[in-house]
């Protein structure tokens, strides 16, 4: 079923990581990404791993879900590893056979590249696992609000994004239902030539578009009935506020960055 796609799906919870301001988490992710790229020594990489594991544990996200998130990246990770392994020269030559040459440097580079990709993916998933898409859009709107000064329609863009996000599960559910209904009438989506399969999509796409337009129309009317008129003068029910927790989080993130820079400086 389409519904079972769980990639990057929000895990509701009440842990410290969940309670953090989404703006903090978004900014921390940027700091974290920079740190991952700076961590080119074993000690600093270990530090980043410890940080990631601690946050995952604090958020009570099962490690299994993290591994599951990495699975779709597997081919990409392997490709990077192989490329780095054979194309990096330096250090002592370990293997010299036909067109394959493996150097110690190659092993090291490949190892760090793979580790970096995994850390990047896990860090990003940690954000989407612990922050609802709506909270993320809110954070984005607040962080980008200075751009309003130069007439970027930040509020409208954020509103469009949250509406889109809000309707993804609804449309997926709807698609599931329509697929089931047409299957019940003997529709076959799995066999036949490519053209036949593409044609088989018509009975799904037509009702889906009809219902998407109907929903859009209803939503627009409902918003208008509640006097929605864009972002100007609009206040919020849930105002984002930084708390002591966020201060602490920024402190931890800053500490990590500083530690990695220092370790890098000493070549550890």
């Amino acid at each position, binding site marked *: 079923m389409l519904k079972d796609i769980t990639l990057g799906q929000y895990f509701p919870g009440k842990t410290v990581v969940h309670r953090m301001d989404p703006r903090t988490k978004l900014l921390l992710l940027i700091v974290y990404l920079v740190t991952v790229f700076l961590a080119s020594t074993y000690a600093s990489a270990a530090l980043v791993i410890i940080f990631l594991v601690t946050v995952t544990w604090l958020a009570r996200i099962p490690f299994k879900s993290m591994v599951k998130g990495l699975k779709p990246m597997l081919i990409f990770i392997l490709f990077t590893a192989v490329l780095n392994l054979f194309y990096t020269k330096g250090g002592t030559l370990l293997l010299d056979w036909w067109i394959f040459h493996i150097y110690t440097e190659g092993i090291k580079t490949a190892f760090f590249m793979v580790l970096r990709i995994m850390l990047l993916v896990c860090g990003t998933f940690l954000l989407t696992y612990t922050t609802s898409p709506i909270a993320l859009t809110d954070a984005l709107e607040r962080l980008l609000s200075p751009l309003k000064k130069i007439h970027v329609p930040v509020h409208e863009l954020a509103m469009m994004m949250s509406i889109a996000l809000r309707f993804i599960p609804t449309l997926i559910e709807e698609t599931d239902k329509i697929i089931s209904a047409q299957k*019940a*009438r*003997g529709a076959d989506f799995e066999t036949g030539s490519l053209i036949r399969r593409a044609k088989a999509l018509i009975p799904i796409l037509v009702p889906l578009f009809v219902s998407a337009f109907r929903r859009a129309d209803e939503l627009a009317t409902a918003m208008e009935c509640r006097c929605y008129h864009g972002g100007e003068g609009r206040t919020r029910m849930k105002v984002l506020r930084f708390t002591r927790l966020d201060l602490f989080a920024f402190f931890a993130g800053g500490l990590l960055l500083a530690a990695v820079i220092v370790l890098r400086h000493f070549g550890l």
Partner: protein
Amino acid sequence: MDPTTPIIEVKNLTHVYSAGTPFEHVAIKDIDLSFRPGELVGLIGHTGSGKSTLIQHLNGLLKPTSGQVLFKGENIWKDKKFTHSVRGKVGLVFQYPEYQLFEETCWKDIAFGPKNQGISGDELDARVRRAAGFVGIGDDLLEKSPFDLSGGQKRRVAIAGVIAMEPDVLILDEPTAGLDAAGRDSVLENIRAYQRAQNAAVIMVSHAMEEVAAICSRLIVMNHAGVAMDGTPAEVFVHSEELTEMGLSVPQVTTVFRLLRERGIDLPADVYTVPYALARLAERKEGRRC
């Protein structure tokens, strides 16, 4: 076929949604049921009791987490071809089926199901017109776009789309939801017409007790992912207190008769339709006179 042999059997059926994720949910558990040709079964139960989940197993849209579904004694998941052919023999009409119409004309939309079964030419046209006849859609409407019809007409075209496959078992998920009284009556009458003509087994999910009381020969009550009661309407509506506890209503006459009984008036407990109630009241009156 011998009318006493079941056409569909459900054995020990359990279905778990999103198994192995934080959203795991047991929708139905250990269900055993069987349905015979010519039966008109009402499936009732509160919201989320697993009715829709159960019926989607009967034509192989959902695969059981454990347990079996047998069509004429054979496991419907035996092989891919059989599963596909069962979908034509067990017709399933979803809730709000009018949202699944997609063709340019009603004729084409009704023809979609039988065409997928490999029927074509004159036989296809005959099937479409027969199905349209069952639901009272005239020839003039068949050439119209389904998107130009009224809500009730759309609903009937969608039901015809399943009836056109001439299934042995017709299952409908809340076929009358959102219709006015006249629309409701005509849809129910269409369903009965098909059931009588084909001696089909009909299973109808409904929240309207008056409706199921009036037309069903058997009622199945679902509660907490299992079957709580299974019997004739009279046998089921006798338990009006338990039904109320499950968050279900009973027909209004049943409640009236229960309240009268509580006041010490000697009346039967198995009353569930107005004509039947009138007959019993008349009987009682006469009994007094003699």
